[in-house]
Protein backbone atom coordinates (compact mmCIF):
# COMPACT_ATOMS: atom_id res chain seq x y z
CA UNK A 1 0.00 0.00 0.00
CA UNK A 2 1.43 3.34 -0.94
CA UNK A 3 1.78 6.26 1.41
CA UNK A 4 -0.27 9.21 0.17
CA UNK A 5 1.25 11.95 2.34
CA UNK A 6 3.59 14.55 0.90
CA UNK A 7 7.12 13.79 2.00
CA UNK A 8 9.46 16.53 3.07
CA UNK A 9 11.59 18.49 0.61
CA UNK A 10 15.30 18.53 1.45
CA UNK A 11 17.39 21.49 0.32
CA UNK A 12 21.17 21.43 0.33
CA UNK A 13 21.96 25.11 0.69
CA UNK A 14 25.37 26.17 -0.63
CA UNK A 15 24.76 29.85 -1.20
CA UNK A 16 25.96 32.87 0.77
CA UNK A 17 26.62 32.06 4.41
CA UNK A 18 27.35 28.38 3.80
CA UNK A 19 30.49 26.51 2.80
CA UNK A 20 30.02 24.21 -0.22
CA UNK A 21 30.54 20.51 0.44
CA UNK A 22 33.26 18.61 -1.41
CA UNK A 23 31.86 17.17 -4.66
CA UNK A 24 32.28 13.55 -3.48
CA UNK A 25 30.55 14.32 -0.20
CA UNK A 26 27.72 16.12 -2.02
CA UNK A 27 27.25 13.12 -4.32
CA UNK A 28 27.13 10.75 -1.34
CA UNK A 29 24.53 12.88 0.47
CA UNK A 30 22.34 13.16 -2.64
CA UNK A 31 22.52 9.49 -3.59
CA UNK A 32 21.80 8.24 -0.06
CA UNK A 33 18.79 10.52 0.37
CA UNK A 34 17.42 9.77 -3.11
CA UNK A 35 17.78 6.03 -2.63
CA UNK A 36 15.72 6.36 0.56
CA UNK A 37 12.91 8.13 -1.27
CA UNK A 38 13.63 11.82 -0.56
CA UNK A 39 13.55 14.73 -3.00
CA UNK A 40 16.64 16.91 -2.75
CA UNK A 41 17.35 20.31 -4.25
CA UNK A 42 20.75 21.97 -4.47
CA UNK A 43 20.82 25.74 -4.10
CA UNK A 44 24.13 27.40 -4.98
CA UNK A 45 25.37 30.98 -5.03
CA UNK A 46 24.24 31.05 -8.67
CA UNK A 47 20.66 30.78 -7.50
CA UNK A 48 20.75 31.55 -3.79
CA UNK A 49 17.02 31.65 -3.34
CA UNK A 50 14.82 29.09 -1.71
CA UNK A 51 11.84 28.20 -3.84
CA UNK A 52 8.65 26.97 -2.33
CA UNK A 53 8.00 23.31 -3.09
CA UNK A 54 4.30 23.98 -2.56
CA UNK A 55 2.03 24.79 0.33
CA UNK A 56 2.00 22.18 3.08
CA UNK A 57 5.26 20.54 2.11
CA UNK A 58 7.82 21.00 4.90
CA UNK A 59 11.33 22.13 4.01
CA UNK A 60 14.43 20.73 5.64
CA UNK A 61 17.39 22.96 4.82
CA UNK A 62 20.83 21.46 5.36
CA UNK A 63 24.22 23.05 4.84
CA UNK A 64 27.66 23.58 6.22
CA UNK A 65 26.80 26.73 8.15
CA UNK A 66 29.95 26.76 10.27
CA UNK A 67 28.47 25.41 13.46
CA UNK A 68 25.07 27.02 13.78
CA UNK A 69 22.19 26.64 11.37
CA UNK A 70 20.26 29.87 10.76
CA UNK A 71 16.67 30.02 11.91
CA UNK A 72 14.35 30.40 8.92
CA UNK A 73 10.64 30.90 8.71
CA UNK A 74 8.08 31.36 5.98
CA UNK A 75 6.81 34.93 6.12
CA UNK A 76 3.36 33.73 5.04
CA UNK A 77 3.40 31.07 7.75
CA UNK A 78 2.38 28.34 5.34
CA UNK A 79 5.55 26.30 5.16
CA UNK A 80 7.28 24.62 8.04
CA UNK A 81 11.06 25.07 7.75
CA UNK A 82 13.70 23.17 9.71
CA UNK A 83 17.42 23.88 9.37
CA UNK A 84 20.43 21.70 10.21
CA UNK A 85 24.13 22.39 10.21
CA UNK A 86 25.76 19.33 8.66
CA UNK A 87 29.36 20.54 8.84
CA UNK A 88 31.59 17.63 9.84
CA UNK A 89 28.84 15.02 9.47
CA UNK A 90 29.39 11.94 7.32
CA UNK A 91 26.75 11.37 4.58
CA UNK A 92 25.11 8.47 6.47
CA UNK A 93 24.86 10.67 9.56
CA UNK A 94 23.11 13.31 7.42
CA UNK A 95 20.63 10.66 6.29
CA UNK A 96 20.04 9.60 9.91
CA UNK A 97 19.39 13.21 10.88
CA UNK A 98 16.78 13.63 8.16
CA UNK A 99 15.18 10.27 8.93
CA UNK A 100 14.90 11.00 12.64
CA UNK A 101 13.21 14.34 11.98
CA UNK A 102 10.75 12.79 9.55
CA UNK A 103 9.83 9.96 11.89
CA UNK A 104 9.45 12.36 14.83
CA UNK A 105 7.06 14.45 12.72
CA UNK A 106 5.17 11.30 11.74
CA UNK A 107 5.57 11.95 8.03
CA UNK A 108 5.17 8.90 5.84
CA UNK A 109 7.48 8.09 2.97
CA UNK A 110 7.35 5.51 0.21
CA UNK A 111 10.70 3.82 0.46
CA UNK A 112 12.34 2.16 -2.52
CA UNK A 113 14.26 -1.08 -2.33
CA UNK A 114 12.16 -2.60 0.45
CA UNK A 115 11.04 -6.10 -0.48
CA UNK A 116 7.29 -6.58 -0.53
CA UNK A 117 6.56 -2.86 -0.29
CA UNK A 118 4.50 -0.86 -2.76
CA UNK A 119 6.10 -0.08 -6.12
CA UNK A 120 4.88 2.55 -8.59
CA UNK A 121 3.45 0.29 -11.27
CA UNK A 122 0.54 1.55 -13.32
CA UNK A 123 -0.34 2.18 -16.97
CA UNK A 124 0.44 5.51 -18.62
CA UNK A 125 -1.61 6.35 -21.71
CA UNK A 126 0.04 8.01 -24.70
CA UNK A 127 -2.91 10.07 -26.00
CA UNK A 128 -1.02 10.87 -29.20
CA UNK A 129 -1.43 7.19 -30.10
CA UNK A 130 -4.62 6.16 -28.28
CA UNK A 131 -7.67 5.75 -30.54
CA UNK A 132 -10.13 5.24 -27.67
CA UNK A 133 -10.89 1.71 -28.86
CA UNK A 134 -11.57 0.56 -25.28
CA UNK A 135 -9.75 -2.74 -25.68
CA UNK A 136 -7.86 -2.02 -22.44
CA UNK A 137 -11.06 -1.23 -20.57
CA UNK A 138 -12.73 -4.45 -21.60
CA UNK A 139 -9.59 -6.54 -21.14
CA UNK A 140 -8.44 -5.52 -17.66
CA UNK A 141 -9.92 -7.70 -14.94
CA UNK A 142 -9.16 -5.26 -12.17
CA UNK A 143 -11.17 -2.19 -13.11
CA UNK A 144 -8.09 -0.04 -13.70
CA UNK A 145 -9.63 1.77 -16.67
CA UNK A 146 -12.71 3.90 -17.07
CA UNK A 147 -13.93 6.78 -19.24
CA UNK A 148 -14.18 10.43 -18.30
CA UNK A 149 -17.17 12.71 -18.87
CA UNK A 150 -16.18 13.01 -22.52
CA UNK A 151 -16.12 9.24 -22.94
CA UNK A 152 -12.37 9.30 -23.22
CA UNK A 153 -10.41 6.37 -21.82
CA UNK A 154 -8.49 7.07 -18.62
CA UNK A 155 -6.65 5.28 -15.87
CA UNK A 156 -9.10 5.54 -13.04
CA UNK A 157 -8.00 3.04 -10.39
CA UNK A 158 -4.26 2.74 -10.83
CA UNK A 159 -3.86 1.15 -7.40
CA UNK A 160 -5.81 -1.86 -8.70
CA UNK A 161 -3.08 -2.59 -11.23
CA UNK A 162 -1.09 -5.77 -10.56
CA UNK A 163 2.61 -5.08 -10.13
CA UNK A 164 4.70 -6.29 -13.07
CA UNK A 165 1.65 -7.12 -15.20
CA UNK A 166 1.75 -5.24 -18.54
CA UNK A 167 -1.05 -7.31 -20.12
CA UNK A 168 -3.24 -4.37 -21.19
CA UNK A 169 -0.25 -2.82 -22.92
CA UNK A 170 0.32 -6.03 -24.83
CA UNK A 171 -3.22 -6.07 -26.17
CA UNK A 172 -3.33 -2.38 -27.06
CA UNK A 173 -3.46 -2.33 -30.89
CA UNK A 174 -1.78 1.09 -31.04
CA UNK A 175 0.95 0.46 -28.44
CA UNK A 176 -0.45 3.46 -26.60
CA UNK A 177 -0.14 2.02 -23.09
CA UNK A 178 3.19 2.28 -21.34
CA UNK A 179 4.61 0.98 -18.10
CA UNK A 180 7.72 3.13 -17.51
CA UNK A 181 9.20 0.56 -15.08
CA UNK A 182 8.97 -2.27 -17.61
CA UNK A 183 12.25 -3.65 -18.90
CA UNK A 184 11.66 -3.75 -22.65
CA UNK A 185 10.35 -1.48 -25.38
CA UNK A 186 7.97 -0.29 -26.57
CA UNK A 187 6.01 -1.02 -23.37
CA UNK A 188 8.56 1.01 -21.38
CA UNK A 189 7.93 4.10 -23.52
CA UNK A 190 10.60 3.51 -26.13
CA UNK A 191 9.89 4.75 -29.65
CA UNK A 192 7.26 2.65 -31.44
CA UNK A 193 8.30 1.33 -34.84
CA UNK A 194 6.44 -0.60 -37.51
CA UNK A 195 7.77 -3.96 -36.30
CA UNK A 196 6.36 -3.23 -32.84
CA UNK A 197 2.99 -2.37 -34.34
CA UNK A 198 2.88 -5.64 -36.29
CA UNK A 199 3.93 -7.61 -33.23
CA UNK A 200 1.29 -5.96 -31.05
CA UNK A 201 -1.38 -6.70 -33.67
CA UNK A 202 -0.33 -10.34 -33.54
CA UNK A 203 -0.75 -10.34 -29.77
CA UNK A 204 -4.26 -8.97 -30.18
CA UNK A 205 -4.96 -11.91 -32.44
CA UNK A 206 -3.70 -14.25 -29.73
CA UNK A 207 -6.12 -12.55 -27.40
CA UNK A 208 -8.90 -13.11 -29.94
CA UNK A 209 -8.11 -16.79 -29.98
CA UNK A 210 -8.93 -16.82 -26.30
CA UNK A 211 -12.36 -15.48 -27.08
CA UNK A 212 -11.81 -11.79 -27.80
CA UNK A 213 -11.02 -11.04 -24.21
CA UNK A 214 -11.26 -12.81 -20.93
CA UNK A 215 -14.63 -11.24 -20.16
CA UNK A 216 -16.27 -12.52 -23.29
CA UNK A 217 -14.70 -15.92 -22.82
CA UNK A 218 -15.99 -16.15 -19.29
CA UNK A 219 -19.35 -14.81 -20.44
CA UNK A 220 -19.62 -17.48 -23.15
CA UNK A 221 -18.74 -20.19 -20.69
CA UNK A 222 -21.22 -18.82 -18.22
CA UNK A 223 -23.96 -18.84 -20.88
CA UNK A 224 -23.08 -22.40 -21.75
CA UNK A 225 -23.23 -23.32 -18.10
CA UNK A 226 -26.80 -22.01 -17.85
CA UNK A 227 -28.01 -24.69 -20.20
CA UNK A 228 -26.56 -27.42 -18.02
CA UNK A 229 -27.70 -28.63 -14.65
CA UNK A 230 -27.79 -25.98 -11.97
CA UNK A 231 -25.17 -27.83 -9.94
CA UNK A 232 -22.80 -27.02 -12.79
CA UNK A 233 -23.07 -23.37 -11.86
CA UNK A 234 -21.40 -23.75 -8.51
CA UNK A 235 -18.81 -21.22 -7.28
CA UNK A 236 -16.17 -23.94 -7.47
CA UNK A 237 -16.92 -24.51 -11.14
CA UNK A 238 -16.75 -20.79 -11.79
CA UNK A 239 -13.40 -20.67 -10.10
CA UNK A 240 -12.17 -23.52 -12.26
CA UNK A 241 -13.35 -21.70 -15.36
CA UNK A 242 -11.48 -18.65 -14.30
CA UNK A 243 -8.33 -20.62 -13.56
CA UNK A 244 -8.47 -22.22 -16.99
CA UNK A 245 -8.86 -18.85 -18.66
CA UNK A 246 -5.97 -17.43 -16.72
CA UNK A 247 -3.86 -20.49 -17.50
CA UNK A 248 -4.51 -19.95 -21.19
CA UNK A 249 -3.52 -16.33 -20.82
CA UNK A 250 -0.40 -17.47 -19.00
CA UNK A 251 0.45 -19.84 -21.83
CA UNK A 252 -0.02 -17.03 -24.31
CA UNK A 253 2.58 -15.02 -22.42
CA UNK A 254 0.30 -12.00 -22.14
CA UNK A 255 0.21 -12.02 -18.35
CA UNK A 256 3.54 -12.91 -16.69
CA UNK A 257 3.52 -16.20 -14.78
CA UNK A 258 4.72 -14.57 -11.57
CA UNK A 259 1.80 -12.14 -11.67
CA UNK A 260 -0.71 -14.93 -12.17
CA UNK A 261 0.90 -16.88 -9.35
CA UNK A 262 0.31 -13.99 -6.97
CA UNK A 263 -3.34 -13.50 -7.91
CA UNK A 264 -5.90 -14.49 -5.34
CA UNK A 265 -8.32 -16.12 -7.75
CA UNK A 266 -11.02 -16.30 -5.12
CA UNK A 267 -11.00 -12.52 -4.81
CA UNK A 268 -11.57 -11.93 -8.52
CA UNK A 269 -15.03 -10.71 -9.54
CA UNK A 270 -17.88 -13.23 -9.63
CA UNK A 271 -19.07 -14.45 -13.06
CA UNK A 272 -22.17 -12.24 -12.69
CA UNK A 273 -20.01 -9.25 -11.84
CA UNK A 274 -17.78 -9.99 -14.82
CA UNK A 275 -20.84 -10.09 -17.07
CA UNK A 276 -22.07 -6.81 -15.65
CA UNK A 277 -18.69 -5.18 -16.18
CA UNK A 278 -18.39 -6.57 -19.68
CA UNK A 279 -21.79 -5.10 -20.58
CA UNK A 280 -20.84 -1.81 -18.97
CA UNK A 281 -17.51 -1.74 -20.79
CA UNK A 282 -19.19 -2.50 -24.11
CA UNK A 283 -21.74 0.28 -23.52
CA UNK A 284 -18.99 2.76 -22.62
CA UNK A 285 -16.97 1.77 -25.66
CA UNK A 286 -20.01 2.12 -27.93
CA UNK A 287 -20.92 5.50 -26.45
CA UNK A 288 -17.36 6.71 -26.84
CA UNK A 289 -17.26 5.56 -30.46
CA UNK A 290 -20.59 7.26 -31.16
CA UNK A 291 -19.38 10.47 -29.52
CA UNK A 292 -16.30 10.37 -31.71
CA UNK A 293 -18.38 9.63 -34.78
CA UNK A 294 -16.67 6.32 -35.43
CA UNK A 295 -19.53 3.97 -34.51
Amino acid sequence: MKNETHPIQVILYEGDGAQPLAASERFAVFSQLLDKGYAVMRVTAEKARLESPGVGIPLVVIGNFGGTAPALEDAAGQIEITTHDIGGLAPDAVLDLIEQGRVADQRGLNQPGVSGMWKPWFPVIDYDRCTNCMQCLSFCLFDVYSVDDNQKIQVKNQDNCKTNCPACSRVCPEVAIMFPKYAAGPINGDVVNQVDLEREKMKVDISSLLGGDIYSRLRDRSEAAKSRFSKERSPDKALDERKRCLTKLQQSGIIPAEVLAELDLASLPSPEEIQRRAAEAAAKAQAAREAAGTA
Partner: protein
Amino acid sequence: MKILYCRCAFAQVVPQETKDAVLEKLCESGASFETVSDLCEMAARKDDRLKELLGDGETPVKIAACYPRAVKWLFHNAGVPFPQEEGKVEVLNMRDQSAEDIVNELTGN
Protein backbone atom coordinates in the same frame (compact mmCIF):
# COMPACT_ATOMS: atom_id res chain seq x y z
CA MET B 1 17.34 26.90 -17.30
CA LYS B 2 16.16 24.39 -14.75
CA ILE B 3 17.72 20.95 -14.29
CA LEU B 4 15.76 18.00 -12.92
CA TYR B 5 17.24 14.58 -12.23
CA CYS B 6 15.16 11.46 -11.56
CA ARG B 7 16.88 8.67 -9.63
CA CYS B 8 14.30 6.02 -10.66
CA ALA B 9 14.95 4.52 -7.24
CA PHE B 10 11.95 2.16 -7.25
CA ALA B 11 13.18 0.00 -10.12
CA GLN B 12 16.40 -1.30 -11.60
CA VAL B 13 15.63 -0.27 -15.16
CA VAL B 14 18.03 2.67 -15.51
CA PRO B 15 21.66 1.49 -15.50
CA GLN B 16 23.16 2.24 -12.08
CA GLU B 17 26.44 3.41 -13.60
CA THR B 18 24.65 5.89 -15.84
CA LYS B 19 22.50 7.43 -13.14
CA ASP B 20 25.47 7.57 -10.75
CA ALA B 21 27.72 9.17 -13.37
CA VAL B 22 25.12 11.81 -14.26
CA LEU B 23 24.52 12.70 -10.60
CA GLU B 24 28.24 12.74 -9.91
CA LYS B 25 28.88 15.20 -12.73
CA LEU B 26 26.00 17.40 -11.62
CA CYS B 27 27.48 17.42 -8.12
CA GLU B 28 30.83 18.45 -9.54
CA SER B 29 29.28 21.33 -11.48
CA GLY B 30 28.46 24.68 -9.97
CA ALA B 31 24.84 24.40 -11.03
CA SER B 32 21.73 24.46 -8.91
CA PHE B 33 19.53 21.47 -9.64
CA GLU B 34 16.60 19.47 -8.36
CA THR B 35 16.49 15.75 -7.84
CA VAL B 36 13.64 13.39 -7.09
CA SER B 37 13.75 9.83 -5.94
CA ASP B 38 11.28 8.64 -8.56
CA LEU B 39 8.98 10.55 -10.90
CA CYS B 40 6.68 7.53 -11.23
CA GLU B 41 6.24 7.47 -7.46
CA MET B 42 5.34 11.16 -7.48
CA ALA B 43 2.95 10.71 -10.41
CA ALA B 44 1.26 7.83 -8.60
CA ARG B 45 0.51 10.19 -5.71
CA LYS B 46 -0.27 13.07 -8.09
CA ASP B 47 2.25 15.04 -6.05
CA ASP B 48 1.68 18.81 -6.19
CA ARG B 49 5.41 19.30 -6.64
CA LEU B 50 5.25 17.92 -10.18
CA LYS B 51 3.81 21.27 -11.23
CA GLU B 52 6.57 23.12 -9.38
CA LEU B 53 9.17 20.92 -11.05
CA LEU B 54 8.06 22.06 -14.50
CA GLY B 55 8.27 25.64 -13.34
CA ASP B 56 6.45 28.60 -14.86
CA GLY B 57 6.31 27.21 -18.39
CA GLU B 58 8.65 29.96 -19.59
CA THR B 59 11.94 28.76 -18.15
CA PRO B 60 13.34 25.84 -20.14
CA VAL B 61 13.55 22.59 -18.18
CA LYS B 62 15.90 19.70 -18.86
CA ILE B 63 14.97 16.40 -17.27
CA ALA B 64 17.39 13.49 -16.91
CA ALA B 65 15.11 10.48 -16.59
CA CYS B 66 14.02 7.74 -19.02
CA TYR B 67 12.14 7.56 -22.33
CA PRO B 68 10.78 10.99 -23.34
CA ARG B 69 7.41 9.53 -24.40
CA ALA B 70 6.98 7.91 -20.99
CA VAL B 71 8.00 11.02 -19.04
CA LYS B 72 5.78 13.34 -21.09
CA TRP B 73 2.66 11.25 -20.56
CA LEU B 74 3.54 10.43 -16.96
CA PHE B 75 3.28 14.14 -16.17
CA HIS B 76 0.17 14.49 -18.33
CA ASN B 77 -1.58 11.55 -16.68
CA ALA B 78 -0.78 13.10 -13.28
CA GLY B 79 -2.60 16.27 -14.36
CA VAL B 80 0.53 18.30 -15.19
CA PRO B 81 0.91 18.47 -18.98
CA PHE B 82 4.13 19.76 -20.51
CA PRO B 83 3.96 23.37 -21.77
CA GLN B 84 2.46 23.70 -25.25
CA GLU B 85 5.49 25.50 -26.62
CA GLU B 86 7.84 23.07 -28.31
CA GLY B 87 11.26 22.66 -26.71
CA LYS B 88 10.45 24.16 -23.32
CA VAL B 89 10.92 20.75 -21.74
CA GLU B 90 13.64 18.41 -22.92
CA VAL B 91 13.84 14.86 -21.62
CA LEU B 92 17.20 13.10 -21.64
CA ASN B 93 17.08 9.34 -21.53
CA MET B 94 19.39 7.67 -19.02
CA ARG B 95 18.20 4.23 -20.19
CA ASP B 96 19.69 4.68 -23.65
CA GLN B 97 22.00 7.71 -23.81
CA SER B 98 25.50 7.81 -22.39
CA ALA B 99 26.12 9.65 -19.14
CA GLU B 100 28.59 11.90 -20.92
CA ASP B 101 26.05 12.99 -23.55
CA ILE B 102 23.45 13.66 -20.89
CA VAL B 103 25.77 15.71 -18.72
CA ASN B 104 26.88 17.74 -21.73
CA GLU B 105 23.24 18.46 -22.56
CA LEU B 106 22.41 19.37 -18.98
CA THR B 107 25.33 21.65 -18.37
CA GLY B 108 25.44 23.10 -21.87
CA ASN B 109 29.00 21.96 -22.64
